[in-house]
């Protein structure tokens, strides 16, 4: 296996190099997606399927779409990347030094079980069987709540960027796909499937790899595809229902967390009710995440105020 690991690592590094320093922005982004997939593979190899899923869906997939979209928009705006072919040696040296220190640190750390045994010990009380989900949604639920809000913050951060300040217009560029094109067909086919996969991922997350973020990502991908295919119009940011969808997840999370005060503490899920509460949160959160991610990928309205 060591050979596989080494090869994978080499490939990862090469892909990263191409993404970071390779010529051509488009190519770099493509290499970045490849890199993401390879990293996801590494996570599988490291026995972390939850992370692998997240990396594949979010790190490689969604980020890749985001970047690709940006490449397109940038080239449409005529904003090409300035050419830099030479290696910046001083920076390379400094980065190398930092890297060397990290490598030294990594090598001088003795591996240990960390908190895994402790988590395993209290797993039964968390209401879920997947330790990662247990950490995410129970042990460190406060992190996760904040994280879902971070996502929201990023989306709200896009609003002021709307062209002409029309932040309530439909998200993203105006798409004009052919009704009978490949994309359209794909678009018609995908949503039901994606919905299924997404919901499953969330459901499964409780006892095996998967979870709200991964599930939400899948749903979002489907939604974005539909919009790009021109099948549905991108939602306007101002539409009350959509906004409600955005905040429903974090809102419920917070509400249940505060409700936990009744059981003795903030974000406290009593063992008996934990599974139900977590699942409820995950379901609603998935919806919110999906909407958030979809709007994020579509980007701020570029219609210039045309509603």
């Amino acid at each position, binding site marked *: 296996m*060591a050979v596989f690991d*080494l090869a994978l*690592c080499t490939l*990862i*590094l090469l892909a*990263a190099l191409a993404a*970071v*320093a390779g010529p051509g922005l488009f190519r770099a982004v493509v290499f970045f997606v490849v*890199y993401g997939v390879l*990293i996801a593979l*590494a996570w599988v190899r*490291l*026995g*972390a399927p*939850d*992370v692998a899923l997240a*990396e594949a869906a*979010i*790190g490689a997939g969604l*980020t890749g779409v985001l*970047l690709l979209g*940006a490449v397109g*928009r*940038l080239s449409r705006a005529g*904003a090409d*990347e*300035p050419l*830099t072919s030479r290696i*910046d040696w001083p*920076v390379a040296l400094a*980065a190398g030094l*930092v*890297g060397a220190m*990290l*490598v030294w640190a*990594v*090598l001088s*750390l003795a*591996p240990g079980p*960390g*908190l*895994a045994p402790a988590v395993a010990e209290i797993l039964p009380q968390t209401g879920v069987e997947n330790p*990662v989900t*247990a*950490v*995410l949604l129970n*042990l*460190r639920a406060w992190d*996760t709540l904040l*994280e879902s809000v971070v*996502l929201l*913050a990023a*989306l709200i951060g*896009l609003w002021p*960027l709307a*062209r002409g300040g029309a932040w309530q217009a439909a998200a993203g560029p105006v798409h004009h796909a052919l009704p009978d094109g490949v994309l359209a067909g794909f678009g018609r086919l995908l949503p039901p499937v994606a919905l299924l996969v997404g919901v499953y991922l969330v459901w499964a997350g409780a006892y095996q790899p998967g*979870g709200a*973020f991964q599930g939400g990502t899948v749903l979002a991908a489907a939604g974005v595809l539909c919009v790009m295919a021109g099948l549905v119009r991108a939602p306007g940011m101002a539409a009350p229902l959509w906004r409600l969808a955005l905040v429903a997840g974090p809102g419920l999370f917070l509400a249940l967390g505060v409700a936990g005060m009744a059981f003795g503490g903030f974000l406290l899920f009593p063992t008996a009710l934990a599974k139900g509460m977590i699942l409820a949160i995950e379901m609603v959160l998935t919806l919110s995440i999906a909407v958030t991610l979809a709007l994020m990928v579509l*980007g*701020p309205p570029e219609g210039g105020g045309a509603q």
Partner: protein
Amino acid sequence: MTVYAVTGALLVALGLYGLIAARGLLRRVVAFNVVGSGVFLMFGALGWYEGHTDPVPQALIITGIVVALSASALAVGLVVAHARVSGGQVLEDDAP
């Protein structure tokens, strides 16, 4: 699994190089993501012990990935909007 941890460290270095040396704003976003995933890889690989990875780092990494995505989304939005306004992909005053 130290090799993954070292790879993570190298990715950080590589990403940092790109983040700093690149002038193109989108490239910096890409590099930032490389640094991020490098850090995560380090984190995960260091938590690997006897065939399993510590679930705590796993959870944290997932959180980190989402946070990185959020940041990237905002960054991309800003880069695109900036390009639309200024017609370029570099910051003023930001010669190498």
